[in-house]
């Protein structure tokens, strides 16, 4: 088993997976927060734009979004982040992160919105009744409760993101599932062992995340 891990650079592949997850997590949190702000805005056109973004993106397969980024925007139109002389896998990695961020931003925005929905209207009314202004009631009363309520759905999104990074193997990023396909094609006799090792890698990545998010969502839950 150790030979297998060394021969196909399993650790390196999982490191790419982790990097994809971290960059895409930051990206999707940024875009998702903007979309969530648009969605809950009292200005009709903004909430409409936010809802449209969510409806379009989360009903489209991630594969299609990633393909669009890589084949259309990069290969066809050669939009790029790194100099064009960089290796193709570098461009694929960067566009993969963009695709993952755009896709998961819709789920992040829904998670934040569902967090806001957990706050009873009475909390806002009470805040206004004791004379807090808009900024004060946001800072002191509403957002602290809303963010706590959003921990569990955000955790689900981040776990889904970790697993969905495998999709960018379709555009040639050498992450875990790419390494698995490679390994199986070269040593099909240990097919089951390869799958067990790779699957275990994902269990090791996602299980602690799940436990941590569950722990914090319980610990920080607002008692009502």
């Amino acid at each position, binding site marked *: 088993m150790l030979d297998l891990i060394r021969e196909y650079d399993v650790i390196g592949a999982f490191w790419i997976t982790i990097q994809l997850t971290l960059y895409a997590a930051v990206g999707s949190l940024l875009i998702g927060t903007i979309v969530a702000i648009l969605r*809950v805005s*009292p*200005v*009709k*056109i*903004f909430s409409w*734009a936010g809802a449209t973004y969510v409806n*379009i993106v989360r*009903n*489209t*397969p*991630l*594969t*299609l979004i990633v*393909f*669009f980024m890589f*084949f*259309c925007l990069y290969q*066809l*139109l050669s939009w790029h982040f790194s100099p064009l002389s960089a290796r193709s896998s570098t461009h694929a990695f960067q566009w993969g992160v963009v695709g993952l961020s755009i896709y998961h931003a819709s789920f992040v925005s*829904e*998670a934040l*919105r*569902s967090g*806001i*929905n957990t*706050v*009873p*209207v009475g*909390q*806002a009314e009470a805040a206004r009744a004791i004379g807090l202004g*808009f900024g004060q009631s946001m800072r002191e009363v*509403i957002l602290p409760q809303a963010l706590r309520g959003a921990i*569990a*759905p955000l*955790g*689900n*999104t981040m*776990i*889904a993101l970790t*697993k969905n990074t*495998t999709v960018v*193997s*379709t555009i040639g990023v050498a992450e875990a*599932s790419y390494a*698995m*396909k490679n390994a*199986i094609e070269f040593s*099909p006799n240990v*097919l089951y062992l390869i*799958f067990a090792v790779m*699957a275990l890698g*994902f*269990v090791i990545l*996602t*299980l602690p995340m*799940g436990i941590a*998010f*569950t722990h914090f*969502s319980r610990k920080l839950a607002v008692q009502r």
Partner: protein
Amino acid sequence: MSAPSVLFDIPGPKAARRNTFIGIVGAVVILGLVGLVAYGLREQLTPQMWAPFLSVDTWRYYVYPGVFMTLQAAIISVILASGLGLILGMGRLSHRKVISWASAIFVEFFRSVPVLMMMLFAFFVFLFTFRLPGNLLPLAGVVVGLTLYNSCVMAELIRSGVHSLPKGQREAGFAIGLSPGQTLRSILLPQAITAMLPSLVSQLVVILKDTALGYLITYPDLVRSMGNLSAVKGNLVTSFLVAAVIFILINYSLTRFAHWLERKTAGRRAGPEAVALPELAVDPDPDEEMYADNDIYADPASYTRGKRPLH
């Protein structure tokens, strides 16, 4: 914005005027952004790029087979996953420790492995171990991958559905002399399954999207057949856009249907309104409140629904 919102007060005349102004500026900015992307893609959106979609052959040889293959894989998977999910869900609820532990380990394991990996694995198992004929391989890989993952999601739905039922339901079953198994099958499961129907339909959206992963194991789904089309006609951008529109139309109508189903079945059981995926459910898809923001104000019955009268 007629319903009171947690975040904002109902705007007065001054705020309403300000909102209109911000709205107009915002609309210009949003249109500008969309226009910028369209400008960047302008060479790919010319009329001759759309022309292939005017011919019947494109629809007959590329779009229709793609949609058919996508739906085929999704429907087979949802049926198999429901069956396996029911077995796993009942297994997890079993009072025999061995069965419930085995089901729990199975569910937790396959829930944390990416669908794409399971598809790849299934594909190669069918290739090397079962030596399936080449034309069946991709379909078998896609279906097995989707089934393994989604049966775990459904098992969790069933479990949380049963757990969310009032305790009295189980006790009543025992009181009239049913065994634990009989209580589960004839009292708890029917109610739990009604409660999870909307989530099941939402899960179909996830399955439909995930069929596109079959691309990697050469399953000729919609994304792949649109890729083939663009290889012939050289219209990659428009082909992908059409594929996206088809996916969005199907999935959006499924989401609306799930929502309708939820309203329709609400109040027909003792449990809560609907069962969403429990914590750690892996695909964060169904947001039951998405189209129901103002329901609580529109429907006074929902204040009391879920709370049983005390008699």
